[in-house]
Each structure stands twice: as C-alpha cells, then as structure tokens.
C-alpha cells in the first residue's frame, strides 16, 4: 500500500453521469420544491429508479452472502462445541460467496462521491432517492438472509419505494437511550405489539403511505434494561395501527419528508425483529451494537452530503465574484489578499479538509477497518464547515446572496441539517473526545 489521492476512473465516469442528473433533474426543480414543501421530486425519482434498483440488487446479494457466511461460522462453532473439539467439516462455501464483495471494495468510496455530487445538485431532493435508505442499511448490516430477502427485495423491482429509520422521539433525540416506544411480545399471536411516537423520520411518509416500503423502528422490550433493551423492528407499509400523524415544515431540505409516526398497538410478526430478541448487555448485545455500528458507515455519507452543498455554495460564490472581477489568486502571500479573497480561500480549504477526512473514514470502511473515530471526525467537521461556508457565501454575495432569486440562501438553509442529524455536531465531537481520551460515557457525559 501507498498513500494515494486519486479518484478512480470508474468513479470519475459515474460522477459525470450523476452530474447530469444533478444539473438536469435537480437544479431546475430546486426552487420550486423549496417553495412547495410537500411536493415530490418525480423527475429525479424516476430518473434514479433503475440505477437504484440495480444497486439494491447488488447490495442485497452482498449482504446475503455476508449473512450466510456469519450463519455458517456460527453453526461451525456450535457443532465444534458439540463434538468436543472435533475439527469442523470442510464445508463448501455458500453459493452466494461468488458475489461477496472483493477485499478491495470501493463500494462506499463510490457512494460518498455520488452523494456529494447529488447534494451538490440538491440535498433535499437527493434524500428522496428511492430505496431502503437508512432502514435498508440496518437490515443489510444485521438482518438474516431471510429478512434481507423479505424486506429488501421490494427495492429491486416495480414502482419506487422508500425505506426509513425511526429512532428519534419527542423526549429522545441525542439521548437515544431514552426512547419510550415499547415493543411487547404477544405469545398468543406470535407478534410484537408496538406503542409510542417517533418524530423527524426522514422519508417516513414516503415509506409508509406513499409506497409499499418499510421503516426500521427502535423500541424497547424492557425499559429497565436501558440500551440493552432497545431493539430494531421492521414495520411495513399497511400495518394497522401505524399512523403518519404529521409532516414537518422546515428551515431547509424542504423537498425531503420528515414525518411523525404514531404506533397504536401496531402488530408485526415475531420475526420482524432485527438481531437477537434476548435482552443482553455488554458484548452479547449484538443487535444494538450492530445497528449503532451502521452510524459509522452512514456518518461519512452525511458528511459527503454536507460537502456537496458546501461545494455548490463555494463554486457559485467564486464564479459569481470572478465575473465581477474578484478573482481568487492562489499563490499570493496571505497579507496581500483582499478580505473577500481570504474568505474564499478559507471556504475552499475548509471544504477540502472536511472532504479528505470523509474520504479517509470511507476508505477505512471499505477496508473493513474500525472507523468510529474517523467517521465522527468527518461528520463533525463537515457539519461545522459547511455551516460556515454557506453562511459566508450568503454574506459575500451581498444582496444577491440573501435573495431567493439565487439558490445560495437555500443552500445555507439546507446545509444546517448536516450539523444536526446523524448525531449533532456536539454528539459527534463527544464521540471523538471519548475515543481520543479513552473515556466511557460516564467519564465524559
């Protein structure tokens, strides 16, 4: 291995296509969808659908292969135990092995590049991408092959469908450990019964009411057990007792739907629970840990989305100023730059720092190495950087910046969400701090 900073040709090629989507199916609709909050970006959705279905097919195949391998390994360990140390039979690899990802995967690297470009197009519209989204990611990460098949096949065919993840509640945002939604097992019907309220669920309405989608819902099976009692459940569209009660009106990313979902004795099959139903704390608590781990893979994606908006704002500002004769002069000593040039320089450098942190977190992810620290660093940095960059852009363009005739003011409103969801800036900083100090959540609250 050697240090390298080069976008692979395959990614470059795909990026050119995504840029076309951004320019033709996103930017032209940006303002209209910002003005008409609950309208859907159909042009974009229809354009993305075939590609997304193909991507989901590949994801599902890979996830199934991984899940099957895990199962195989678990069985091998078990039988090994039973037979008192007899060597494991040399079983043939599972059929799906062939499609399992190669060691040097660039799947996530490709993804963050695409998302950066889509968000450069429009971050709110981007979120309406058809597919399993965060819910799908959780199922891929911890679902059994059967669950992956049952819940995710829908995303590979037919009309567009959406997925979502519902964690946040009115009294539990950053403090995910405080969720109140309950799941009670009813042995009579072999079902889980869900009760409670989720808020701020991205794509919640699209997933539950406007398509045959599903939502991964976090609920507690044992309030006394704290985090160990928290489990993810898959709730499919059409489940009785599931009500989309409200769609939020927001500062930005208005094209994205943000739903309140009420669970009123909503019954779902016993095997809609993801991971182990047993309440276990510590290393045995694989379900919670596993799904929490998906944050390590989704935070770079949010960072990438942030950076896409930041780049849009930076490029627009730079190019508009250049037309007016205010050109960036790379190479001049700092003390010879004008205040505006110094601001542009700062914006561009901030963006680059955030992007490189994101790429590093992503490279680790593709190499299947631990990246908790790196992904939180990237997310914290990107959220903060683009908040600053987009605010600066509005400032530097003066009356044009604040005007809704251009998109800069919208990008500033859109950008802010990246410092809030998938862990606020503070929460990600807290994670970084705990990692570098070697502290537990009790030592650093």
């Amino acid at each position, binding site marked *: *291995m*050697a*240090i*390298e*900073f*080069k*976008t*692979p040709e395959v990614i470059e090629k795909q990026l050119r296509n995504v840029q076309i989507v951004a320019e033709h199916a996103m930017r032209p609709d940006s303002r209209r969808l910002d003005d008409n909050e609950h309208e859907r970006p159909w042009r974009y959705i229809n354009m993305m659908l075939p590609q997304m279905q193909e991507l989901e097919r590949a994801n599902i195949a890979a996830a199934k292969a991984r899940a099957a391998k895990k199962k195989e390994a678990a069985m091998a360990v078990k039988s090994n135990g039973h037979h008192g140390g007899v060597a494991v039979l040399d079983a043939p690899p599972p059929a799906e092995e062939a499609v399992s990802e190669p060691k040097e995967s*660039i799947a996530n*690297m490709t993804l963050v590049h695409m998302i950066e470009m889509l968000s450069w197009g429009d971050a709110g519209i981007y979120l309406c991408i058809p597919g399993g989204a965060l819910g799908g990611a959780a199922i891929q990460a911890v679902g059994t092959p059967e669950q992956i098949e049952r819940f995710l096949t829908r995303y590979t065919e037919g009309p567009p469908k959406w997925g979502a993840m519902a964690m946040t509640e009115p009294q539990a945002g950053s403090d995910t450990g405080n969720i109140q939604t309950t799941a009670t097992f009813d042995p009579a019907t072999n079902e889980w019964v869900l009760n409670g309220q989720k808020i701020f669920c991205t794509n919640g309405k699209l997933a539950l009411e406007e398509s045959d989608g599903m939502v991964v819902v976090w609920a507690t099976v044992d309030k006394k057990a704290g985090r160990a009692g928290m489990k993810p459940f898959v709730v499919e569209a059409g489940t009785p007792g599931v009500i989309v009660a409200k769609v939020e009106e927001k500062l930005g990313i208005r094209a994205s739907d943000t739903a309140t979902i009420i669970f009123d004795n909503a019954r779902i099959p016993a095997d809609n629970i993801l991971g182990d139903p047993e309440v276990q704390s510590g290393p045995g608590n694989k379900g919670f840990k596993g799904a929490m781990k998906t944050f390590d893979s989704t935070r770079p994606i949010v960072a990438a989305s942030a950076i896409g908006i930041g780049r849009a704002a930076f490029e627009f500002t730079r190019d508009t100023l250049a037309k007016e004769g205010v050109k960036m002069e*790379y*190479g*001049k*000593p*700092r*003390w*010879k730059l004008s205040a505006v040039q110094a601001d542009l*320089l*700062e914006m*561009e*450098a*901030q963006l*680059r*720092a*955030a992007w*490189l*942190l994101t*790429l*590093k977190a*992503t*490279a680790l992810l593709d190499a299947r190495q631990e990246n908790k620290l790196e992904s939180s*660093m990237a997310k*914290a*940095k990107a959220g903060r950087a683009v908040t600053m960059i987009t605010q600066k852009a509005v400032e530097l363009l003066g009356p044009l910046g604040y005007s809704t005739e251009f998109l800069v003011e919208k990008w500033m409103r859109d950008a802010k969400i990246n410092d809030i969801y998938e862990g606020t800036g*503070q929460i990600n*900083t*807290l994670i*970084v*701090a*705990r990692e*570098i*100090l070697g*502290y537990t959540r009790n*030592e*650093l*609250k």
Partner: protein
Amino acid sequence: MYSFDMTSEQKMLVDTVRRYAEKNLRAVHREAEESKHVPEKVVQTGWELGLLPGFIDAQYGGYGEYSALTSALYLEEMAWGDLGVTLHLLTPNLFAIPIAQFGSDKQKEQYLSLFCNDSFPRATAAMIEPVVQFDPAELQTTAVKEGDNFVINGKKTYVPLARQAELFLVYAQESGTTQAYIVPADTQGVKVGKRIKLMGVQALEMYEVEFENVVVPKGNRLGGLKGIRIQKLLTLSRITLAALAVGVARAAYEYALAYAKERVAFGEPIAHRQSIAFMLANMRIEIEGTRLMVWEAAYKFDTGEDAAKAAYLAKNYADKMVLDVTDGAVQVLGGHGYIREHPVELWLRNGRGFVTLDGAVVA
C-alpha cells in the same frame, strides 16, 4: 484510489525519525531555546540519519530520489520533536533541494555531492527581505546581467546559519521574475550582519545579510538559462512548512491531552468536562484534516500533477490550525501553560512563525 497507508519503507523511516525526535530533539529543546544555541551533538546525530542524501541521486553520491510526501511524513515527526532545532538541521536543504529540483547537470554535479558527506554542510539560502508585505514573487533584491556576470544588490533577513555558511543561494528579482543565484560566502560584497531575534524558534541562528554589488558568473544562475519557477519552489516550501506545522500542533495536542487527564479541578480531571474535551477533540480533527491536505499536495507534487493550489490551501489552513491548536494547548494547561516549565508556550510561539516563513524553508 484514495489510500492512507504509508509504504513499509516510509513507516520505517518515520519510526527512525520519531525515535530521534523523542530521544534527541525533545531532550534538548528547552535548553536550546533558552540558550539560543543548538548543541553540536544533536546536529551531528541528526545529520547521520542521512535524510538529505536520501533525496539525492546516486550519481551525485546520494541514495534516493526526492519525494515531497516522504519528506512531509518525517518532517512532521521532526517538528514534533522541536521546530527550532529542526530548522537548523534543515538549513542545508534550503540550498540542496532547489539545486536538485532546478539545477543544470553541471550545477548538480558540482554541488550535490557536498550534501552526501559525513559532516553537516555549510550552505543556506537567503529569501526573506526586511519589508512589510514581503512577497517571494516580487523581491526587492535585484540581479542584473552585466556581460558574463550577474550583479546582485539587496538586503536579506532570516537567513539561517549565515555566519557559518560557505555557500548561499540568493533569491533576487531579475527582469520581473524571481531567480536564484549561487553565491560563495567569500565573494566580495557579501556582508553577514547581526543575528536577528525572534519571538520563537530561538535556537535557530538567523542573520541579516546584505549583498552589495556582488558579482557572480552567469553560470551561477540556478538552472542556467532556464532558471527556476518560483511558484514551484513556493509549492514545495508550503508543503514543507505545513508538514512542520502539523508536527508542532500534534506535539501540543498530545501534551494537552495527557495533562487534561491528570489535572484535577473541582474534584475530577478537567478532561471530564466538555469544554476541555471538546477543545481536544477539535484539535485532533483539525490536525488530521490538515495532515491529509499536506499529504494530498505532496502526493500531487510527486506524481507531477499541478500541486500549487493544493499546497497553497494546505499551507494557509495549517498556518491557522497550528495557532489554534497551540493556543488551545496553552489554554488547557491554564496558568501552568503560561509558565516556561511546560513546553506549550514555546509551541505557541513557534506556531506563530509559519505564516512568516512562507517561501523560506524547503525540505
């Protein structure tokens, strides 16, 4: 691809330099600063690492080729040890690296072997001038062609190790562009003036040098007829300085982190408070972000891509980052950070130097 793993050779080199920095630079850094003097022994052991010959072609007596990336990797370690002593150690580079980058075959042959010997070479460079708004691309010092010679006139400052130097590389303006000239110290008109006193990096001896009607043969123009490209030199300088800044910042961050876990106030370690822990977390984020920008610029330089912009962004970002981080470290230590018993105040003073040294250090 995007890959962030050093080669095994780079890892070994970085390890070696880190050990040197730990054992030698850290051992002398306070003493060197206070006495304004770099001990001979640490220079010799530093020179024996063979870092500069590692960047010089075998045909001139070295054993490698230049890599801005490899350089950036170990410069971070050296600056982590101590910036003042490191700049002393890097002084020969200020002459040798431009020769290797821009020199004609004849110049390389004549000069590069001097940097592949056992003893620390006595060569330096004169770039910075005592003016406000100093700009390496618009120098006041002039070189005028007269017959087969160049005549150099002007005042320089911040010239490291000028008093002991036998060779200078002097940057001057020639018909509107910056060029460089090889000037032996004993040439008539070369006047090494007083040692300058700075806010930081006080271990490093730096001088004012005046060039008054200094005549050198035209063959001493670096790069011959082709000359040098100042922006390429500045790119290298920016990568160098930004890498050093990352090292200084990392030193401060590590020290503050360890201190914050030990220091108890109000019944618990101060690191238990977010206002301290978050400062540390942000230091870590900024150091890592800057380091990646430095690596990217260096990678581009090595692969022959245009690295100017990447280096410019990295350097400007690093200038600010190193101040934030070193200042943060002083703050984490509270009153103790202000006292010279701890190194953080020194790192803050050193950190302030980076913005000023633009163009003056290449390694």
